[in-house]
C-alpha cells in the first residue's frame, strides 16, 4: 500500500516535489542555454497539483497548438514524463538551433521535428539527471516521442496516467527567458510505488 495519495497530499510531500521540480528545471535551462549558445534565465517554477479539467486551461487554451515530448522511465523509478512547449516557443528554439531568423513561423518540417526531438532529449535528460543526482536513484529514459497537436489532446496522455491514481496531476511550469520568453511545462508521472521510492531516497 502506497503512503502517498495524490488527492490528500500534505505540505511536506508537496515541498519536496516542488524542490525536485525546481532543481530539475534549473538544470534543464542550463543545458538548453548551452545547446543554443544563448543566455537563458529561468523564473522560479510554479508547481501545482491540478484537477484534470483545469489542466489544459491553466497551461494555455485546450485548443492551442503545442509540442509534446513524452518518454518512459525505468529503473528505480518507473513511470513517464512529458515536456510541453508552446508552439511559438518551439519555433523560437528551432530557429535558434537551425540558425534561422527567429521570427520565422513556417510550419515545422522533418528537420525541425528532429531538432525539436533533440531539444526534448536534452531538456528531459538534464531534468532527469538532476533528479537522479538528488535522489541517488537510477533512472533510465526511453527514446522521446514527439507530437504537435492541441494542448488538451496531448495532455490527455499524462492525464490518463494520473487518472489511474487519482483526480489530479502534478504540473511544473517553467518560464525561460531573456529578451524572449519561452514557456515550457514538465509533467512528471511516477507510478504509485515510485513516489514512495523518491521520498524515501530523500529521507522522508
Amino acid at each position, binding site marked *: 500500500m502506497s503512503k502517498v495519495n495524490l*488527492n490528500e497530499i500534505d505540505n511536506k510531500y508537496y515541498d519536496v516535489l516542488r524542490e525536485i521540480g525546481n532543481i530539475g528545471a534549473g538544470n534543464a535551462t542550463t543545458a538548453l542555454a548551452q545547446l543554443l549558445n544563448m543566455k537563458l534565465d529561468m523564473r522560479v517554477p510554479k508547481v501545482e497539483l491540478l484537477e*484534470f*479539467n*483545469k*489542466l*489544459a486551461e491553466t497551461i494555455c*487554451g*485546450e*485548443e492551442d*497548438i503545442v509540442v*509534446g515530448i*513524452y518518454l*518512459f522511465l*525505468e529503473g528505480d523509478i518507473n513511470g*513517464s514524463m512529458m515536456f510541453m512547449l508552446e508552439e511559438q516557443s518551439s519555433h523560437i528554439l528551432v530557429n535558434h538551433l537551425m540558425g534561422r531568423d527567429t521570427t520565422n513561423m513556417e510550419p515545422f518540417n522533418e528537420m525541425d521535428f528532429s531538432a525539436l526531438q533533440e531539444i526534448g532529449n536534452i531538456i528531459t535528460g538534464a531534468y532527469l539527471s538532476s533528479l537522479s543526482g538528488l535522489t541517488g536513484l537510477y533512472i533510465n529514459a*526511453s527514446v522521446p*516521442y*514527439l*507530437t*504537435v*497537436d*492541441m*494542448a*488538451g*489532446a*496531448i*495532455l*490527455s*496522455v499524462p*492525464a*490518463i*496516467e494520473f*487518472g*489511474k*491514481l*487519482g*483526480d489530479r496531476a502534478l504540473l511544473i511550469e517553467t518560464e525561460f527567458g531573456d529578451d524572449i520568453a519561452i514557456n515550457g511545462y514538465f509533467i512528471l508521472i511516477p507510478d504509485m510505488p515510485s513516489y514512495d521510492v523518491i521520498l524515501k531516497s530523500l529521507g522522508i
Partner: protein
Amino acid sequence: MAEMIKVGMADLKVCPYPNAVTTLGLGSCVGIALYDPVTKVAGLAHIMLPDSTQIRNNENKAKFADTGILELVEQMVKAGANKSRLVAKIAGGAQMFAFQNANNSDMVRVGDRNVESTKRVLKTMNIRILSEDTGLNYGRTVEFYSETGDFVIKSVGKPIKTI
C-alpha cells in the same frame, strides 16, 4: 439564443434543447454524445479510462466509460429524454504519440481500449451508435447541436467534419 455548454476532461453535461455542447481537444479520451431525437435532449461525456472496476480510486463517475455513460443517461432521463430512444455519436480515442514500447502496451492502446469499452457499454444499454470518428493519431474538438443532432469535429490542419 442557444448556448454552448462546455464539458471538461473527466466530466459530463446534459444539454437541453436548443443548446449545444462541446469538449475541447479530445486526445486518447472519448467524447460520447447521446441524443433523444424526439425531445431533443442531448448530453456529452468526456471519459478518460475504459473501466471503473479496474481502478481503486473511482469516485468520479465521469472519468470512466462504464459509469460515465450510465450517469449521463440517468441525468438525461431526468431532463426529459426517453431512454429507449437514445442514440449515440462518438469521437476520440486517438493514439497521440507513436509509442512502440511493448512494456507499456497498456498505455499504447489506451485510446483503442476507451473506444472498445464505450461501444461495449452502449451495446449493453441498447443505445445505437449512429456514427463515429475514432482512433488515428490526432486530437479532436467536438460540438454536438441538439437542434440538428449534428456532431461537428475539428482537428488541426484538417477540414471540419460533421458526422
